[in-house]
């Protein structure tokens, strides 16, 4: 069963864009993470990126840094996170992507984790610090277990390189919309619409746009040229700003709901 493909096809049929929600696992705790994910799915999220916290998140801005630190302070481990994914899978068939830095996978053993992910029903992995050149280290293992490796394309990626990445991409392509780290950007990189169009032309899989998308307005602006929108820091900001976890979850669900509604009109 290809849950990622099915999801994008369903969105296409319903004439809307997919909503991809990123969640830092373990912030403030894994029970909250599980409730948050289920609530986000209920509120319009189509795909979940389950973020594995790392001690040195060099591609992340202040919000996800803080969320990751909190999760690690509470002793969150990859094994516990996989258990959370397994719990979510009992209630929902939404695709789950394990979103992680490479070292956490290496330390746990690539083959072991890939096998576990497949058994749980995780659909793919996105590894922030594993560029195209190093894909070969991982792809055979993931393919053996039927997992997709989600590729990233940045505003700095030259057209020729972007084509190469797009041609072999699996699942969907994550297209970074601004130069910088996650969260907090006020404007998208120049030429982002052309970029998205070009990549969409080259790719055999759907193209999602992400980084700094925190409102229905921003999501709507990008929607015409992509197949899905990734929202991450905006969700975790809601969680970090609330003293009461349930309030944080409700507020994050509200944000996702607004974005999902806006994307239906595109």
């Amino acid at each position, binding site marked *: 069963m290809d849950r990622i493909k099915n999801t994008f096809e369903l969105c296409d049929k319903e004439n809307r864009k997919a909503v991809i929600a990123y969640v830092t696992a373990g912030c403030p705790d894994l029970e909250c993470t599980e409730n948050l994910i289920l609530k986000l799915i209920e509120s319009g999220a189509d795909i979940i990126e389950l973020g594995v916290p790392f001690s040195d998140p060099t591609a992340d801005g202040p919000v996800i840094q803080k969320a990751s630190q909190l999760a690690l302070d509470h002793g969150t481990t990859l094994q516990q996170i996989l258990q959370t994914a397994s719990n979510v899978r009992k209630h929902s068939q939404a695709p789950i992507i394990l979103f992680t830095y490479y*070292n956490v996978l290496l330390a746990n053993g690539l083959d072991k984790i890939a096998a576990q992910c497949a058994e749980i029903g995780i659909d793919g992995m996105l590894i922030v610090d594993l*560029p195209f050149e190093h894909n070969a280290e991982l792809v055979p293992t993931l393919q053996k277990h039927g997992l997709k490796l989600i590729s990233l394309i940045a505003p700095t990626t030259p057209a020729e390189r972007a084509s190469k990445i797009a041609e072999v991409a699996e699942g969907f392509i994550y297209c970074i919309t601004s130069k910088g780290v996650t969260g907090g950007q006020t404007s998208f990189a120049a030429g982002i619409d052309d970029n998205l169009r070009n990549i969409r032309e080259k790719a055999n899989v759907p193209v999602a746009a992400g980084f700094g998308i925190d409102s229905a307005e921003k999501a709507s602006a990008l929607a015409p040229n992509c197949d899905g929108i990734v929202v991450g820091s905006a969700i975790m900001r809601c969680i970090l700003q609330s003293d009461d976890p349930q309030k944080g979850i409700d507020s994050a669900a509200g944000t996702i709901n607004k974005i999902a509604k806006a994307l239906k009109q595109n």
Partner: protein
Amino acid sequence: MKSKGFYGIYGGQYVAETLMPSLHELEAAYEKYKNDSDFVSELREYLRDYIGRPSPLYFAKRLTEHCDGARIFLKREDLNHTGAHKINNTIGQALLAKFMGKKRLIAETGAGMHGVATATVAALFGMECEVFMGAEDVRRQAPNVQRMEALGSKITSVTSGSSTLKDAMNEAIRNWIKTVDDTFYVIGTVAGPHPYPEMVRHFQSIIGEEARRQIMLKTSKLPDTVIACVGGGSNAMGIFAGFVDDEDVHLVGVEAGGSGLATGKHAASITGGDTGVLHGCKTKLLQTDDGQIIPTHSISAGLDYPGVGPEHSHLADIKRAEYVVIEDKEAIAAFDLLCRTEGIIPALESSHAIAEAAKRAPNMKPDQIIIVNLSGRGDKDMQSVQEFKQSQENK
């Protein structure tokens, strides 16, 4: 044959996609200019007239007498402009930045020596400069913060994580992702993504080239042992480069043992670590079973890093170099020893190498030779030394 950017299984380019095009640009520029006659002659002029190279190879007579064994020579990188080996690399990278038309330099720093060396060359070439430094290091290396400010650099104090060198490097990488169009990231050690380990080694290899020539002139033979401290490992790689092909020369890298390996409070990535990926390269790291990086401890801010250059990990694997550990208290004793026997105040980083030499020399013959890379001077460390001694007295 090694594949490009790899030393055995170590090295690589494990960075976010946003940075890959810049690494490719840097790689191409480095390959183009490293042997370019204009680049090389300008670099040589700065090495000679600005840094003061060659640095002397000094026979430490009283230290040798004290140890009563092998003859100990010191490669005096502490006499370079700015007081450490770091400037050999920053002048090379800043010159490359100039040839590439970049206007802004950024750097991470631990002890502050690399930060000062980067701030210095930024002033020299009229470039903008921002240095990222862990808040804990800003506190314990205050004189270097003042030097960088005097040189016109902006200092950004980093409070995330353990507020030390690795966190400063995280923040420098994040800043580079945002500013990649006009900014050159001057990495201070032989770590990071390719081409940094190779490039930094290249600019530091002048230490080993000179040391080899100088010891042959003075003694007509090669040394038996070459000793250097290893944090990220740039001064060690620099001096090892001159001798790595001489199979009979024993290479020794000294890691920071902190309060002792058994206490877990140390920074010995090779001796006490496992293979992983951090800051763009695969190498030996101090990490948990779950792949989270462990906060390190060393009295020496410059060695306080949970990783090490990938080539060191490889040299350890193939047993071409030996890696040992010196604890804080041994480094402090060696600091005192060199001050009193030779009238040289060594950096606490270099004191680790001195300590290892003082351990080995008594077991060697008087006709044998040790070269220690005295990578920097210790003026910046007076406060750390005093605090350590007071804490010992209070125990």
